[in-house]
């Protein structure tokens, strides 16, 4: 049974189909990355999986229909790391990570000891123990990224949705973040569905790539199968050379 | 021949003097935008010369009330009546200058601060409208009546205190105001005087102050506007112990009588005198 399965999923926004008849399956523990040009529908697809936007077609999590699950139940299974998380500058790292326990705290209740422990474990795993009392506004870009990941980890969700997890980071921090996510995936048995711009990085960390263009999946498979010069030229309109089946290098027109 | 000439001269002089005081020179289309002036105009017999009065002029009933406003006046509407005299108590937005610019005669009679000023305004209206004699007679009557009421009342008023209420939020008037001076005529002590540290003349008193001062007379000028009455006053928490409530000396004054400075001042003075008679019974 797939951790996540989409059958003919369609999302309409403003009268237009932003995601059109997409079907895909992600196995437990897999890392699948969505690639595609701007406006292809990647972010919208992730939002649909998180239950944040209505959809046509069927989405199932571990075999259960998304529409049948309540909001809180979905939040216990799916953690979202947005592209630009809103981080209240006055909140401490500890409070922020504790927010990840929200799906487990009763409506008008308080966090339990279990919740506090889970948050503490997430902080430790992401090496944020020393920063726990610091305010979010005082952290560097890399530290904030770790804080968001810690929050997602605290959610104890089995499916992690990442929307452009590296776009705000420098080369070193990008690698760090992706290595961290991969390590978490292996440690905690997470399933990862990410949307990424950087084609090389996308190819390095995913076991499968899905190329989304104009609301549809136009190619899927191992990175070497999807990262081909003709496909990239056709859908991105970019001239590239693909080296070793993995490194995508832009080529300047003469 | 010289006798005829003398006779003609005398006749001419008589005719001239008669013409200067003749009713033909008096305005026939008067507009009053001041409720006080309206009352005065009708009281001196100039009512027939009044063609329009403002929306607040509710006395006397036969005054030709219109929708003209003394607070937010519409110059065109005023001019539309082709007035030859406009009386106002207040000059918002350069109304007076505008009307005069249109060649209309305007007289400003703002709120009188003393009884003498009030009398002077009545006399002025009298001479403007050709009823100088009636105005003089009215003023004399008012003076006499007030004097009678005050002399009878001063003895009784000795040592008594008064609280005049403008609103249920306990806004009051001090002796520095027109109304306040009437109380002063009787020699009544006004509890608002000690409270007016701001010098506005219209302080807002605190309930505990009024209760602790326990005024002998309470005058309510907030009956029509705010539904106050001797009953509501007695029901106020803590007011049971106030002297005026205990003796039932709570005077009701028509809101408009208390806020104007025209002929009905006498009614106000009479009401105060009656309250004094009631206490000293």
């Amino acid at each position, binding site marked *: 049974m797939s951790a996540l399965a989409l059958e003919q999923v369609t999302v309409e926004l403003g009268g237009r189909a932003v995601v059109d008849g997409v079907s895909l399956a992600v196995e437990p523990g897999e890392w699948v990355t969505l690639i595609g040009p701007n406006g292809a529908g990647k972010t919208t697809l992730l939002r649909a999986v998180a239950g944040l936007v209505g959809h046509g077609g069927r989405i199932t999590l571990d075999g259960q229909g998304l529409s049948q699950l309540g909001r809180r*139940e979905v939040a216990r299974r799916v*953690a*979202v790391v947005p592209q630009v998380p809103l*981080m209240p500058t006055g909140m401490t790292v500890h409070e922020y990570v504790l927010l990840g326990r929200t799906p487990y705290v009763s409506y008008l209740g308080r966090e339990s000891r279990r919740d506090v422990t889970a948050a503490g474990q997430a902080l430790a795993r992401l090496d944020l123990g020393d920063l726990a009392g610091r305010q979010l506004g005082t952290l560097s870009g890399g530290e904030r990224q770790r804080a968001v990941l810690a929050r997602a980890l605290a959610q104890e969700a089995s499916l992690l949705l990442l929307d452009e997890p590296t776009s705000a980071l420098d080369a070193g921090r990008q690698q760090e973040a992706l290595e961290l996510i991969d390590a978490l995936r292996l440690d905690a048995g997470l399933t990862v569905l990410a949307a990424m711009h950087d084609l090389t990085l996308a190819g390095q960390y995913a076991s499968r790539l899905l190329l989304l263009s104009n609301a549809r999946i136009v190619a899927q498979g191992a990175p070497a199968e999807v990262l081909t010069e003709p496909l990239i030229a056709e859908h991105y309109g970019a001239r590239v050379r693909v080296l070793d089946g993995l490194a995508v290098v832009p080529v300047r027109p003469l | 021949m010289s006798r005829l000439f003398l006779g003609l001269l005398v006749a001419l002089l008589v005719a001239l003097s008669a013409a200067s005081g003749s009713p033909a020179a008096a305005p026939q289309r008067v507009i009053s935008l001041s409720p006080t002036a309206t009352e005065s105009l009708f009281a001196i017999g100039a009512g027939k010369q009044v063609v329009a009065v403002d929306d607040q002029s509710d006395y006397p009933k036969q005054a030709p009330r219109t929708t003209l406003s003394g607070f937010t006046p519409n110059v065109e509407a005023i001019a539309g009546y082709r007035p030859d005299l406009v009386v106002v108590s207040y000059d918002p937005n350069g109304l007076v200058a505008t009307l005069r610019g249109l060649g209309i005669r305007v007289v400003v009679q703002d709120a009188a601060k003393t009884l003498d000023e009030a009398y002077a305004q009545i006399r002025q209206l009298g001479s403007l409208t050709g009823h100088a004699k009636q105005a003089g007679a009215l003023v004399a009557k008012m003076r006499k009546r007030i004097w009678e009421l005050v002399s009878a009342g001063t003895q009784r008023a000795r040592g008594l205190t008064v609280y005049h209420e403008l609103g249920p939020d306990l*806004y009051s008037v001090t002796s520095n105001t027109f109304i306040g001076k009437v109380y002063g005529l009787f020699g009544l002590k006004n509890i608002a005087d000690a409270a007016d540290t701001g010098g506005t003349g219209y302080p807002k008193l605190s309930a*505990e102050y009024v209760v602790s001062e326990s005024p002998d007379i309470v005058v309510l000028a907030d009956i029509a506007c705010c539904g106050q009455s001797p009953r509501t006053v007695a029901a106020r928490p803590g007011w049971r112990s106030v002297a005026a409530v205990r003796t039932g000396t709570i005077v009701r004054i028509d809101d408009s009588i208390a806020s104007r400075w025209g002929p009905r001042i006498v009614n106000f003075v009479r009401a105060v005198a009656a309250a004094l008679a009631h206490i000293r019974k």
Partner: protein
Amino acid sequence: MSGRLWVVGAAAFLAAALLTGALVGPVHIGLGAALESVGARLPFLHIDTPLTQTQESILWDIRLPRVVLGALVGAMLAVAGASYQGVFRNPLADPYLLGVAAGAGLGATIALVYLPNGVDFQKVLPPAAFLGGAVAVAAAYAIGRSAGRGSGGATLVLAGVTVASFFTAVQTFVQQQHSDTLQQVYAWILGRLPSSGWTDVKILLPYAAVATAGILLHRRLLDVLSVGDEEAASLGVNVGRVRLVVVLCATVGTAAAVAVSGLIGFVGIIVPHAIRLVAGPSYRLLLPLSVLFGAGFLVLADVIARTALSPAELPIGVVTAFFGAPFFAVVLRTSRRMASL
């Protein structure tokens, strides 16, 4: 400083404010005498009150109800303001945001203007103001919803501004048509804590208690909302429902407070911001502290209103505004902490 310590401190501040309020006034009543008077009312002690009948009356029928009312109104306005700031993620939100003030003002004006003869003003104003406030907020909500979802609180705020402008315009028009009521309306608008005994306290208490409880119960959720509607939803929060419940509680409580005391401004902004500056932005602490400090603040403001021109009084709205303006200047300068909203 830990949260618990702050709450204890705030409670102490409130107690001190209440005591000050009870003892200060144009009529002098000393601490000892006041305590004996309280003791006289307790069932098992056999203490006689040393006060005269007038003084007893002043203490129990005029001063104490006023102090208690001040505490209730202050608490309600402060916590409502803080909760609006949380729900709309807008530091300038105050309890009058959705048009409650304009609606209540219009209700009060209409009641004053069309008051049937012989009916007591004090009895008619509160329900009229409450109704006006409720209608205004309902209208803001209806307009906000019809404009479509997805923009979170911003649409609702704009709808509130629209409704407020409209109601204010109507109120001004009615006032102009009946200029003789100007003084009463203006007096009401400036806000005041009426000396009408325990009646107003009894009227306000149930609304304020329920509304405040409702808001306090949602304080954890308001912290969750601070990461934005989308992220909060992804954490399993029904953002629309939380917003509705909190806004409803805050608005009903504010409408009731306004109905009784007129438009006392600045409390809903000054108090939450001042608390943020020293105790941090977390709603879990901010909301309970707003209740306590808001109550104390207004009681003290009322003491000033009663004593500055004693024995005359200042409208309390003037006192709060007087402190509000310089306060904003201070807040703007300490923008470092402001950014933490």
